């Protein structure tokens, strides 16, 4: 019995040692490319309408207040490395690569923000001229909602309520105005807040445009600056 206990203790120590060594070797923060791929490919496989929406991989620090400015994500495989620049929201276009998947590659974050996770983020596609018809925004929001319902059954009762324009912190004077069919214009109020609902982080300049009444193609939302993202709002 004593021998058996020693054997068990030895095995546990071996497990612990293996765990410690492995953890030390990979002290840098990382996430598995395969796990990220699994999350991101859902959008690619989605067969519903998605012409007005796009999907990014977002880096989310687990530590409160960690800034993502200037950070870079590195896709590290056995033979190759690929640098993925992050925007101020921590997003990047995620490459779906069979070679990286088969390599069991990792996503490494250069910079000291501590541990992080990644998640897919759907946003509306941006227009260079900054002019968005009300009907376009509604259609894009519906596309985003369609995908959200596809990926998450708990969202089936939600409805599109509007969109949120998110701007860079140093974007200069941010101005978003509503241009109505009768020619009148109204500036939409600017607020500081997190880019994504429920996210921890410093405030970004944001402007919310709420859908009111029936859709009309004649109402336009005009943004003087290029936003970082236009996000759908589900009520």
């Amino acid at each position: 019995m004593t021998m058996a206990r020693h054997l068990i203790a030895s095995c546990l120590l071996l497990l612990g040692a293996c765990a410690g060594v492995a953890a030390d070797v990979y002290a840098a923060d990382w996430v598995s490319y395969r796990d990220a791929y699994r999350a991101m490919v859902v959008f690619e496989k989605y067969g519903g309408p998605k012409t007005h929406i796009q999907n990014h991989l977002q880096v989310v620090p687990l530590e409160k207040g960690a800034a993502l400015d200037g950070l870079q994500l590195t896709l590290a495989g056995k033979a190759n490395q690929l640098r993925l620049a992050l925007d101020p929201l921590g997003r990047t276009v995620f490459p779906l690569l069979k070679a990286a998947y088969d390599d069991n590659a990792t996503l490494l974050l250069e910079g000291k923000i501590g541990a992080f996770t990644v998640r897919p983020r759907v946003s509306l596609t941006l227009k260079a001229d900054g002019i968005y018809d009300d009907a376009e925004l509604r259609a894009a929001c519906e596309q985003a909602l369609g995908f959200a319902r596809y990926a998450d059954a708990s969202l089936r009762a939600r409805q599109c309520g509007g969109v949120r324009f998110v701007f860079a912190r140093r974007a200069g004077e941010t101005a978003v105005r509503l241009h109505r069919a009768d020619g009148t214009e109204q500036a939409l109020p600017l607020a500081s807040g997190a880019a994504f609902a429920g996210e921890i982080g410093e405030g970004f300049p944001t402007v919310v445009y709420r859908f009111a009444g029936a859709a009309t193609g004649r109402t336009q939302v005009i943004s003087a600056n290029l936003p970082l993202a236009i996000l759908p709002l589900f009520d």
Partner: protein
Amino acid sequence: MNKFSALVLAVLSSSAAAQTPATNPMPDGSRDMYVGLGLASAARYEGAEHSERKLLPVLQVQWSNGVFISGMSAGMHLSHDPRFEYGPLLELQPRRDESGNSGGIDGIEARASIVALPLAAFSQNRLSGVAPVSTRLLGGGFLNYYLAPDWRLTGSLLYGAGNDRDGARLDLGLQRLAMQVGAHHRISVAAGLSFVNAGYNKAFFGVDRNDSLLSGNPVYRPGGGLKDGHLGVRWNWDLAPSWMLTSNLRVRRLADDARRSPLVERPTNVTVSAAIAYRF
């Protein structure tokens, strides 16, 4: 991405219900595989008073076509809808003889007790004299529904257990997948119920006249119904991109006719395991 990173790593416990890993979309021609080894402490058989320590092989493989092997189960994901998972399912049910549950199929679930129980432990062995239950391949299917990306209802129905191959088992459960509790640590919680037909209970908890004569247990002819309720907690620690430490605690309590069997020494069994696995 909790749902998507929710690795349901199979630990090859002989008492484990059929396990279906979350669907795992990947590039055509790719696969995702974990192989590992650890230790487990589990009851000798369902309802046994004594536990034994075993080496614990770990295996989970998923291919791009949806086929998976997860512990003693194998199946195929047929759904392309992330809210549903369904498909055919096979499970290898290990042999049970008077020494308890065993396996020995291609080294998977190889019975390798590393702690010899004293003979006195078996002096009251209620399986002594009871005819062994042969290894069986059960067939059926599974259906899972995601209430939300981190919550899923699970169901599986398998048939073919027992020497007469007429045992059926329905497993229903609720899982909270992959709660992130810090960098590289995830915890999953599961609760479930198992329902079986009379054939299943007769095979594993019944005592026929021959068994009674040889074992001294009274004749017992159980019916079908609820077999057990179970709770489980799994902790996965991603040590490195290719290394994981997976630990599991499972409590199972037999119910109704299974619980009343003369073969049952204690209705509640606890299984504890820890294993280190490499991701290929």
